[in-house]
């Protein structure tokens, strides 16, 4: 309470803040251009070092690797926009991947039904996260750190040391990952469709705009009558559904699934989201930015492999990139804030 009183903005600061909102969108758009430029630079440098890198098949490989992470990143973006975070996505992907694989292995369900059940499972796990955060009011970091281990533990219980291999899986299911639509691999098409739909809804639908409002200023969002807790719950459901879709496709993409599938994925996803310019304090950022972030990270990873750098560097680079991205954001934000405060006073 008292913090709010101290922070209550003076007229000039208020003007600064209104301007700041607009500048932040501008910065976000600059960010997307920025990522593309960095991406081009990486591609150029690596191509000079190793010409093999620059080929349609290698780029297709990169995009295939990105597709599943990008789908999860779309869901993560909706959660981060509301000033929350979902650390359990890796475990949701893993649990859904194993459950779907197991259903198909045991011939319990046909391929479409198993896919449907997998997506619903993801949605349910996301809804559980949403309940803990929105109803029990547990901070998202604690709630999803808990479910990260709860869901992974359930995965171990379900798997019981078993593994689903490619031979156990029906051909129709494995065919999803190798098939293509108009010469573009289905997984890439699916990821692009999900990202575009989410981008459109976040930009143009009422609830989409309200998610931004909640992240920018939760108290103000509440005052203007936005059902904040219900929307935060919804964001977690969307995040769970996206992780569920990625989980369903996981077995098809990689052929085999064990209880450790997709562990640690949350760090890659969060790295993609913050590199993509989604503000970790909520309220600004786009799905397209997050997807571009994922593409940049996957390109760097691919480049390291091609340049024969040890893959032990990958995790360290993910971590360094998270720090660099949020650090740069803070520096840019601080810079614009100072400029706006000055103009506001004048």
């Amino acid at each position, binding site marked *: 309470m*008292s*913090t709010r009183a*101290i*922070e209550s903005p003076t007229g000039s600061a208020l003007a600064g803040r209104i301007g700041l909102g607009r500048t932040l969108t501008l910065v976000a758009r600059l960010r997307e251009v920025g990522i593309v430029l960095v991406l081009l630079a990486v591609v150029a440098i690596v191509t000079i070092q190793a010409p093999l890198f620059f080929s349609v098949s290698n780029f297709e490989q990169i995009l295939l690797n990105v597709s599943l992470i990008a789908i999860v990143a779309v869901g993560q973006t909706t959660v981060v926009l509301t000033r929350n*975070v979902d650390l359990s996505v890796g475990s949701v992907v893993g649990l859904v991947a194993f459950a779907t694989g197991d259903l198909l292995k045991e011939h319990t369900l046909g391929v479409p039904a198993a896919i449907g059940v997998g997506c619903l499972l993801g949605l349910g796990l996301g809804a559980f996260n949403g309940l*803990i955060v929105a109803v*029990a*009011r*547990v*901070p998202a*970091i*604690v*709630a999803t*750190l*808990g*479910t*990260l*281990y*709860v869901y*992974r*533990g*359930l995965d*171990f*219980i379900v798997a019981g040391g078993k593994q689903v291999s490619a031979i156990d899986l029906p051909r129709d299911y494995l065919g999803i990952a190798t098939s293509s639509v108009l010469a573009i691999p289905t997984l890439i098409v699916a990821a692009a469709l999900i990202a575009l739909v989410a981008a459109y809804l976040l930009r143009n639908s009422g609830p989409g705009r309200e998610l931004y409002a909640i992240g920018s200023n939760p108290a103000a969002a509440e005052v203007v009558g936005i059902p904040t807790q219900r929307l935060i719950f919804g964001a977690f459901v969307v995040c769970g559904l996206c992780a569920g879709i990625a989980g369903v496709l996981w077995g098809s993409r990689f052929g085999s699934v064990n*209880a450790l599938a997709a562990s640690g994925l949350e*760090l890659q996803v*969060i*790295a993609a989201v*913050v590199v993509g310019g989604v503000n*970790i*304090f909520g309220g600004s950022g786009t799905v397209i930015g997050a997807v571009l972030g994922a593409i940049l990270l996957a390109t760097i990873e691919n480049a390291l492999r091609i340049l024969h750098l*040890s893959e*032990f*560097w*990958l*995790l*360290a*680079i*993910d*971590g*360094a990139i*998270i*720090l660099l991205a*949020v*650090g740069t954001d*803070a*520096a840019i934000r*601080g810079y614009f804030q100072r400029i706006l405060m000055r103009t506001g006073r004048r």
Partner: protein
Amino acid sequence: MSLRSLALFRRWETLLVVLLVAFIVLGSSLSPYFVSGSNFSNLTSNLMEKAIMALPLALIIIAGEIDLSVESMLGLASALLGFTYALGWPLWLDIPLVLFVGAMGGLLNGVLVTRVGLPSLVVTLGTLALYRGLASVVLGPRSVSGWPEWFTNFGFSNVPGTLIPWPLLVFAALAIAFLFVLHRTWIGRQIYAIGKNKEAARYSGIDVAKVKTYLFIFSGVLSALAGVILTARFSSARADNGQGFVLDVVTSVLLGGVNIFGGEGTIVGVVLAIFVIGVLRNGLTLADVSPDTQSVAVGALLILSVAGPTLVRRISAAWPRRQLTKPVSNS
């Protein structure tokens, strides 16, 4: 206000004792080997690394921040210790070096949080990946063994003639020091003040950034110390040592009654919670439940430990307010 919260925490600690007794009863019903001196000694020895990391984390959370990178700093310390030892450097040089790297890792967290102004959640999520990544860069997939006898004995032997594991002495000394500093000195009062209201603390002359930076440095050093002890106990240095410890460490602190929003919590509660989780895991291990499956119970405990008090507080908040309105309206 402080009186009421004190009473609440007294009750919270009583609850922890009840929980501890309940788990001990449960454990003894699961396995006949549970209630024995050697099992309790073994159980304690398994806990010490997590317990040592929980102490500084408690202070960090009381000050309103979080450190998720502790388990990776443990891994980095273990990897570095193995790497330098394999180079033939003597341990009396390796151990201080590793502790120094721990301090530097904590300093990086602290600087990014207090000077750059980034949320500790994201910073330490980043360093969780960074430090673990650096650990595997340093040591790769190999493990280093062949440690001197005094070192491994320190890790898994008891004080001669007793059932007290050596690392327990280290933890006990640290716990008493933390207890004293947090509850009996101005440093502790500053930490509570920062967690209650950062701005008010700053206006009352507390160097918030400095206090927080020191807390992160302590966290780094003690995580590195935990890495040294774990290496001694397993007599093996590996880059993936301590992976997944963050769950138990964070759960101990929050189950121990530390408020996730800062400003409240006691060392006694945290120490009790450490043993609650240790007894739970040990009982489940004796009942042949795998560690990954045990994490379901610990994860649930983590969520409940925060959801429970929030719900209780929301219900109890309705009570005294009604009682207070009368005298106010009379005057």
